[in-house]
């Protein structure tokens, strides 16, 4: 399998130089090759594993437990205004 490193990087919002992409391509391909080894195992009749632990999901009751901690939560934000996060312009 040949990985399109630039495309993956773009989807992940990671900026790569051409040199970095060239360097990473064989490394990622060898990881994929390693994972490909798994397909050598015969899994006929084995249900797909959804989770490594065989536990059912714990659930919570529909009760409000959180209070407004906006001031504390917004402290690490680079920029806020009237309680809103301010980010570089994004629009369709």
């Amino acid at each position, binding site marked *: 399998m040949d990985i399109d490193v630039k495309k993956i990087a*773009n989807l992940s919002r990671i900026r790569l130089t051409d040199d970095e992409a060239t360097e990473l391509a064989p490394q990622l391909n060898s990881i994929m090759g390693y994972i490909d080894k798994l397909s050598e195992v015969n899994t006929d009749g084995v249900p797909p594993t959804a989770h490594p632990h065989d536990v059912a999901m714990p659930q919570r009751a529909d009760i*409000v437990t959180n209070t407004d901690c906006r001031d504390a939560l917004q402290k690490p934000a680079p920029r806020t*205004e009237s309680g809103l996060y*301010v980010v570089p312009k994004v629009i369709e």
Partner: protein
Amino acid sequence: MSWEVVIGLEVHCQINTKTKAFCGCSTEFGAEPNSQTCPVCLGMPGQLPVLNDEAARKTILTGLAINANINLESKFDRKNYFYPDLPKGYQISQFAVPIVEGGYIDIPTKNGEKRLGVTRIHMEEDAGKSMHEGLDAVSHIDLNRSGIPLMEIVSEPDMRSADEAIAYLKQLHQIIKFLGVSDADMEKGQFRCDANVSVRRPGEPFGTRTEMKNMNSFRFIKQAIEFEVLRQIEIIEDGGEVKQESRLWDSVKNESRSMRSKEEAHDYRYFPEPDLPPLRVTQEEVDAIKAGMPELPNQLRKRFETEFGLSAYDADVLTQTQSLAQWYEALVAAHPANPKQCANWLANELLGRLKELGKDITESPVSAQALASLLDRIADNTISGKIAKDVLDAMMESGKDVDTIIDEKGLKQVSDTGAIDAMIQEVLDANPEQVEAYKGGQDRLFGFFVGQVMKASKGKANPAMVNQRLKELLG
């Protein structure tokens, strides 16, 4: 040769829980921006989601209402994309194994009922809200909506016209409201729709489809589908090819435009959500949810037709909402003699007056009991149906009961033979020429006399008695 339209619909519906899907933040609408957030729904590192059991219960209930299978084990996956209103960089959704699969909804058509398939319903979480208006180089982000539970209801490509698509959506909307699983307020975006539209020659394989995104009004959805169908046919008839893409409906310009930026982002790289083990429910739990299911609109419509002899139209009008159906049943219980008359007075008279006041049935100043006693007074000939409409006006305005209004306004119907005879005699004496003409064979004048007598009585004379006495007195 004609074209066949093929439509499939995806509905995103906000589940009306008190808290978000995976954290204990409130979902209340209209709060201060970002005041209902926590480290989980803000995507802080190391936080773990815990599913809201009410979101699961309501999704299962919806699945049962559309005759679907409930997967006793379902799974959550991550749908990865970058957008500032999605702080985690992924949306928790159900991709490989949704909780609900394979149901259907029946819609009425000119050729009888048509069954439309529902492929699946899965749970997922909503994103936050971005605001761009009036801002120059920046966008504002409110994450109160981030993590609110949604159901995505995906249909089969079974609709063959915009009208069928709207019928499906209205039916689904009504079922959801009856179940109480969502407020489904379209203006608040709690029930929004993506439409996949393609055209083909009948009998041929599906054509290339486009996806009309994020519409929240039945009218716009219909317009958008009709526009898209014509656009595609024009492209093909001009020798072109339809391009698979997402499009956005502009309800001001009445046209759609391509959302090119969305295309590349369509590689969502789904993978199993490692923070959530499989969701398991037992058949007993599913059965218990089923046992608590309310009567659905279709069942209610059919029952109103058979039990109360209503027309399909009246049954449809009176089952638009649960509260209206309950109001009607309370009215019939209080005035059981004539369920059809109850339907007429509720659907035509009361709802009409409420509409003028901008109110719905739950805000009616006249109770079902009060309207029943008005119908009782028509039935026992105290007032005529015509006068009853005036009495209803007065009841709406003053809130007084029927008998008080009839007494105060002196509206009691005159059924006393002596009084009616006196009024008739007065009319006959005042119109000797018409009497001559009638006796000379002009039968049509009978209606004139009835009208004159009713007028003289200010509408209070018992019309049946007026008819009978007039015939006798005119010989």
